[in-house]
Every structure is written in structure tokens, then in C-alpha cells.
């Protein structure tokens, strides 16, 4: 009996051991938000801080107090952070003493912020304000439509909008796809930044390592609208579409393949795709591909009534204007003096060392952010598979993804702020997370 009692006692002790030790629990994390040096690093009150969990997409929000401090209780993990502070013209006058016509937005973002129980409980964030240009990337249709029932990636397009009150000429405008890491690795490599993005300061031939990751973006494909200066006007409040291929994608596409054999791309459900036959601009790559001795896409056909963009730079192997259907991309439009682009540096990925570098190594055009008019960071719809940001906060502090992912027929489009006399104007705070929304089906308006 005594033995049994002792055994029972040990069981009881086993059972009563507390289980509330060592638990990882939600923790308080502070953000100290300031404006940048141009504003004497003043504390940024009333800024919205938003955290998005990289593992499950769960979001947390907070607002800074007058000292620029925001506190949020979060589960330990890795987060994407965006901070935003908007001023009305009157608020901006009171704050900075300057008169402005439109709202001013300050933004900041952080990728891959790791919040742990044992780590730093304070994160400092510096807000920047971006350039508000007259031209905008209004809509991007990168998801494409169903591979079997629609037009796959053939119906992709981007839309440029004149958000100013003046007529703007599109002649010479560049459109670039921005190159960078397509995923965040679980272990950061030496050639990557802490957020998983490429550290371009380590690239062979980099001439401005101090500013390599903040004052430049890197592109593997740059297209340019042709013209002599006043060939392609865009009225105030109007848009133009640049199609990958300017045809009616709702109709079956009959082409000759590279062997001259006829081939038909059926479109069993035309409602999934769009008619781009009247798009004013398109990307037609076959002449360029032939000049390089490369193959071309048989679906990349030329619409004589649509103006072909010129290829200003290309190291991407795409045989047409192909936007990543997952959303692992970023896009910018920019201008510079004629020919200036040819003087810009083109460098290899920082993953390439001198032993690996050869004439066939892909290089990426180093574009100064100072010439960029507008940019949009797009993202995968699965937060668990997100890529690190490719654009600096001054160009786009946010990102936008479709809801249903690749080949879903969804597009991302800026939120319309006003419409007057048939002219539409769209939101531009240099934060696509708040400036854009998702459409179930692209909006195709061709005047």
C-alpha cells in the first residue's frame, strides 16, 4: 500500500508541473516614426502603421501618437510593414509652411522585419515623400486569363494615364520591368540584403555602391514609346493601353508556327479575356528576336494599326512583353534626355562573381530613381510566397496583388478619386497598397 501511495504521489507531481513557463506569447512592439532629413526628422504623428504576417497574411494596425510612437501587440514572426501619413494641402501648409495643390503622402516600408521575444522591441521608421508625376501607371493586367479557357498570358497589358490637367506627349516614354529576387529565402545569402532582395552594391562593375540599393533600380527589359516629340499626345484625364499583343483575344487565334504550320489557340470562354485590337500601343518582338538570331513566339503577331514599342534594353529572355503572372514584378515609367539611357551602367546580378562572369552573363540596366515618373510594385497573392520589394519607398512604398492569382483574369487598377468633364483622376500617394484595387476583369477603355 505504501508503494502504491508513493507511485500515486509521483504521478500527482508529474501532473501538477506548471505548463505556463517559457510560452511564447504575443508581444508589444513599438515603432518610432519620423519624417526624413528634409523635414528635420520630426516625429510623425497620426501615421498609420500596418503589419502583415509573412506566414499567414494576418494584419495588425496602429496609429502613431504625437511623438511618432505606435505600439502594436503581435505574434512573434516575420512581418512586412508599411507606414503611411497623408496631408491635405492645408495640413501640409501648417506642417511644412508650403502651399501645394494636392494631397501629399509620406510613406515607408520594411520587408522581412523579424519580431521576437528576445529581439529589439523598437523599430525606427523614416517616412519619405515621393514624386507625384503627371503620368501614372493606372492599370496593370499581369495575371492573364485561364490557360485553357482564356488567352493565358497573351492578353496582358499595362495602362498609362495622364493624371495632370495638361496635355502630355508620350513620345520617348520608357516602360521598364524591374529585376530582383523572386522569393525570400529561408537563409539569407551573402549577396542579399536582410530582406532577401539582391544587394546590388556587390555587383561586378557597380560604380555607386553607397547608393546602389536606394537610388537605382535594375531592369532586364526597357521598352520605349517611339515618336519625335509630339506624335502621341495624351489628353488630361485620359489613358492609353500598351498591349503585349494588340488583337481581339476573345476570338480564336490562328497563326503559323515557326515551321509554317497553322496553329489555332482556341478561346472556349471568351468572357475570361479581353479585346485589345484597338490598343494604341503594343510590344512586337519578332524583328528584335530575329535580329538576335533567337526564336519568337508565334502568338506575338503584329497589328499594323497599333504602334510598336521600341526595345531600348533587353536581357530578359521573354519572347514577348511578358509580365509575371504570379505578380513577382515591379514596373516603372521614366523619361530622360534622348540617348542618355545608353550611357547608363548595366551590371550583372550580385550573385555572379568574377569567375562566373562572361560575355553571355545577363546584365541589368541601372536606372536612377531620379528619372522615374511612376512605379508600381506588384506582389504574389500568397503572402507565404511573397517576394522582397524591388522599388524604393519614394517610388512605391506599398505593393498590390491580385486576389485569385495567376490566370484569374483579375487586374490591379488605381482608385479613381474624381471625374470631371469626362476626365478621370486617380489616387497617387506612392503607396500601391492604398492606391490600387483589384478588378475581377480588366477595364479596357480605348477612346
Amino acid at each position: 500500500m505504501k508503494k502504491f501511495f508513493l507511485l500515486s504521489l509521483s504521478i500527482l507531481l508529474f501532473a501538477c508541473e506548471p505548463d505556463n513557463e517559457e510560452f511564447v506569447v504575443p508581444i508589444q512592439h513599438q515603432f518610432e516614426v519620423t519624417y526624413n532629413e528634409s523635414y528635420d526628422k520630426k516625429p510623425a504623428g497620426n501615421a498609420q502603421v500596418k503589419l502583415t504576417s509573412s506566414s499567414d497574411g494576418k494584419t495588425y494596425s496602429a496609429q502613431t501618437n504625437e511623438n511618432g510612437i505606435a505600439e502594436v501587440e503581435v505574434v512573434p514572426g516575420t512581418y512586412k510593414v508599411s507606414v503611411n501619413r497623408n496631408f491635405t494641402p492645408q495640413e501640409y501648409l501648417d506642417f511644412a509652411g508650403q502651399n501645394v495643390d494636392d494631397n501629399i503622402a509620406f510613406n515607408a516600408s520594411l520587408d522581412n522585419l523579424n519580431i521576437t521575444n528576445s529581439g529589439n522591441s523598437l523599430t525606427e521608421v523614416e517616412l519619405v515623400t515621393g514624386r507625384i508625376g503627371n503620368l501614372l501607371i493606372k492599370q496593370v493586367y499581369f495575371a492573364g486569363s485561364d490557360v485553357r479557357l482564356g488567352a493565358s498570358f497573351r492578353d496582358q497589358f499595362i495602362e498609362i494615364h495622364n493624371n495632370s490637367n495638361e496635355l502630355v506627349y508620350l513620345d520617348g516614354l520608357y516602360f521598364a520591368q524591374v529585376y530582383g529576387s523572386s522569393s525570400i529565402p529561408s537563409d539569407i545569402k551573402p549577396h542579399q540584403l536582410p530582406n532577401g532582395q539582391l544587394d546590388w552594391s556587390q555587383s561586378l562593375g557597380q560604380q555607386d555602391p553607397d547608393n546602389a540599393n536606394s537610388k537605382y533600380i535594375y531592369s532586364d527589359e526597357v521598352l520605349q514609346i517611339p515618336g519625335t516629340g509630339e506624335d502621341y499626345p495624351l489628353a488630361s484625364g485620359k489613358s492609353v493601353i500598351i498591349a503585349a499583343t494588340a488583337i481581339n483575344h476573345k476570338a480564336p487565334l490562328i497563326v503559323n508556327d515557326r515551321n509554317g504550320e497553322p496553329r489555332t489557340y482556341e478561346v472556349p470562354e471568351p468572357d475570361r479575356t479581353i479585346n485589345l485590337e484597338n490598343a494604341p500601343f503594343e510590344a512586337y518582338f519578332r524583328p528584335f528576336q530575329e535580329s538576335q538570331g533567337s526564336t519568337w513566339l508565334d502568338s506575338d503577331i503584329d497589328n499594323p494599326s497599333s504602334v510598336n514599342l521600341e526595345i531600348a534594353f533587353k536581357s530578359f529572355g521573354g519572347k514577348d512583353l511578358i509580365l509575371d503572372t504570379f505578380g513577382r514584378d515591379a514596373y516603372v515609367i521614366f523619361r530622360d534626355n534622348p540617348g542618355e539611357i545608353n550611357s547608363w551602367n548595366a551590371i550583372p546580378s550580385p550573385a555572379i562573381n568574377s569567375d562566373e562572369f562572361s560575355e553571355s552573363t545577363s546584365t541589368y540596366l541601372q536606372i536612377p530613381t531620379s528619372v522615374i515618373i511612376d512605379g508600381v510594385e506588384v506582389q504574389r497573392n500568397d503572402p507565404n510566397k511573397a517576394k522582397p520589394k524591388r522599388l524604393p519607398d519614394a517610388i512605391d512604398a506599398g505593393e498590390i496583388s491580385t486576389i485569385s492569382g495567376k490566370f484569374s483574369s483579375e487586374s490591379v487598377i488605381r482608385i479613381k478619386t474624381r471625374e470631371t468633364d469626362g476626365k478621370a483622376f486617380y489616387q497617387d500617394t506612392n503607396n500601391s497598397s492604398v492606391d490600387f484595387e483589384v478588378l475581377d476583369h480588366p477595364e479596357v477603355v480605348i477612346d
Partner: protein
Amino acid sequence: MQAQDEGRIILINSIFGEENFQLLNLLPGNFLYYPAEDFSRSALYSNYQAGKYKQGAAPETALNFGVNTRGKYTNEKGQVFFGNFNISKSYYQNLAWNLSHELPNRGLMADPHYFAVSKPAPWDNQKYNLSGGILSSLISDKIHWFLKADYNLENKYRTDFDPRPRITVNELDLSAGFNFKINKAHNLKLSGAYHFSEVSNDITFANNNKNQPVNYDIYVRWIAGYGSITGAMQNSYKKNITGLKFHTGYAFNTPKTKILADLVYKKHKNITLRNNNVLDESDITNHFARHYPEQLNLLVQVNHFISDSKVIGVVMKSTLNRAKNFWQDKSGKTYSSNSEDISLNVNYISQKYNENDFELGARISLWKIKQRDALANTLSQYQNSEIGLVSKKNIIMGDNFQISPFLNLNVRIPLNSNLINGNATYLDNISENDFAGLTLKSFYQDVVYPDFEMWSTPAINFKFGSALRVFSSEKIQSFFNFEGGATKPLEKLENFDASSPYRWHGQVSLSVYY
């Protein structure tokens, strides 16, 4: 090994015999003291259960059938050979929230890390088990030793709808032990066991384009506790499970009275790797989580022969389980579970014609479950008592025909319960495109709330059936067994499809003893 004039426990056609054999198989050293007849049995069996009164991560229907052979044989040298071989096939319908190789027990998953989707689907499973061992003397009858090996192979497939996991489970248990005879009646036992198992789960999609967060009923999520749901690392994982078991025991053995007391401690380490192609499994950065379950088990069995044909049996079982996890990305413990179960069975057996002619048993038990997910701020605990009665009687209908009807009645009475849901405010304010939040909301609606309600309201369970002895000779006896029963709550429920759901089961088998 035992004097021929000792009373014997009969395992054939016995309610208690089935339970006793399973206990003996767990601690084979006890074969030395357990006065059981040798036997060999082969059976074909099939059982089916269906009904809405089920746990959220359990199938709505389950059909199992299989072949089982088991036996115990003592040779002329007194060496005992024992073994079990089972092949079973099972089909599930409407299994949701569980892409694991395990099913929940009293609302608790043995390992809280697994893939899950809310969309139910059918499963097709098969399982093979082979176990056996030997118990023999080492030095006259003073010391005995045993060796036992147990191997399980299981395949589970979700067949008809995306996502489609293919789960393979390989398990190996090796155990060995010694029995020491102190004097004629008193004995000590020591044994140990090593466990290793590997679980791999590889998920494919017929239409991978649909594996998007927006399709949150089929988008693969990772359950990491009880309310913590995260994105899947990749569409595969691997678990390596190792464990050790230590056992010590005492046996009192006289012709009239047999007392077996055993204390077993078991500890496992379950490592979940981020995918099933991890090269360096020892690198902790490749671990998603490590789960550490422990179990302490006290078992006391008393069999006293009132006469040559009448036995009083008492079985006291106490099991304590405790488990905690370490979630690598969170750098700490995020989940723990505890369960405690103590039960007392008192049985009376009357033997006639070398069979258990009449069996009567009463059972009372007390158990409780507690699980806490610190990150999800969710705590669920419930305590229940159960009272049961079981009885069986042989009725001879002719020379070769006999029926053995039985009835089993069990009532569960909740004693106390508590559910804390720290996510409640969040779940009430989920935005339209917060698919992680919508998934979490479904998990609480489909699993947390119904399971808690199920185990915190009273229920009744009854089973009845009979064995029909269809052939009997000196060497062979065959039985056709059938059984039916149901479980039903004794209060109206709010979190189930019906306010008064129930679950029924049926079973048939053909057993041949030879």
C-alpha cells in the same frame, strides 16, 4: 510455467479477454504471470461508423475491414511466443480539417502540427501491422527475459478532391526486458523500448492553380497548435519521431491470486521538418517544430480465483500525458497539452465448459483534457466522468451452436469545462479579403467550438451484439460476431448540423480459434 491446477483466464470469446490480451501485448513480461490459455485466432472483420456526432477533424463515416491473426503459444521448454498480424483497409467520407496521419482523440491531436483544409473529402487508407516476441527463462526460473518487435506500415490517401495528400507512416518498436523472481510469489520486472517512426506527407493538386489563399477551403494551411494557423512551408513535410520507454513492475503470483502492477514512462521527440526533401535533418533551421510528448502510466491488474471457475478481476489504469512544442520560427514554446485518465474496472467471470460462461463488469473513470495555444490565446479544458456496465452470457442452443449476447452501456457526465478564445474579437471583425482570418474562423466554427461542446455535454453510449458459435470441435472453434451501437448527447447542441446528432456503428466478424 504454471501449475496445471491453477485457474486460467480464458481469452477466447471473451469481452475481458480482448482487453487483457492488448494489455499483455504492451507489457509482454506479464505473460509469465497471466494465467491465460494458449490460443491462435484468425479473424475477418468489418466495421462501420457514421453520424454527425463526431469531432471536427474526424471523418463523418468510416468503413474498415481487415484480417487479423494473433496468438500465444507455450512450448515444451516453457518458452512463450506471442504475436499479432493485421492487415486493414479503411475508407473515410467527409474528413475535413485533417491532412494528418492521425485522428483526434477526445478533441486532442497526438501531434498538433499538421496540414489542414476545411473542405471535406474521402480518404483511402491501408495499414499493416506485424508484431511478435518471445519470453524465455535465463537462469532456471529465477530470471526471464523477453524480446519483442512491432512494425507498422500505413498509407493514407485523400483521393477525390484537391488537395491530395499521400501519407506514409513507418513505425518500429523494439523492446526487451527482464523478470526477476524474488521468491515463490513475488516478482520484479524491468523493461525498456525504443521507438522510431517516420511520417512523410506529400500533397499534390489536380489543379494547382486553385491552391490560392482566395480558395481558402482548399488552400493548404498548417495547424500549429489549437488556433494558430499559418501558411504551409511547402506542400510536403516529414516527421521523424524517436522515443524511449522505461517500465518497472511488480507481480504477485499465487495459484489463486495474480497481481500485476506496472509503471511505464514514455517520452517521444517528434521533429517536423519543413519538407520531405530536407538534406540535413539535424540542422534545426530545417525544423518547423519539435514536439515533446511524455506519458506516465500506472496499471494494476488483480485477478482472484474465488473458485476454480469463478474469477474476480480488478483493473486500475492511470495515464498522464503531457506534451509541449517548440515552434522554430517563433523561437519558443507555443502550445501544450495535458490529459489525465484514471479508471477502475471490476469484473466477474464465471467459467463453464472451458469458456467464460458469464461476464459482468462495472467501470468508472475520470478523465480530463487541457490544451493551450499561447499565440492564439486559446485554452480548452474539460473534465468528464464515465460510468459503464457490461455483461455477456453464453446460451447453448445445441451441440455445435451457442449464442453469447452482450450489452454495454456507458454514460459520460461532464464535471467542468472552460474555453477561452482570445481570437474572438478578431474572428468577429474579419475583412472580406483576409483569407487567413476566414480560414481561422472556419477552424473555430468547425473544430474548436463543436469539439468543446461535444466533450462538455453529457452523452450516452450503448453497444449490443452477440457471438454465435457456429462450429466447435476439440481443436477448432469458430464464431460469427455482430455488434451495433450508438452514441448520443443527452442535451441539445448548438454547434452541430443537428441539435440532436448521434453516431452509430456496426461490426461483423468471423473468428476462428485453433
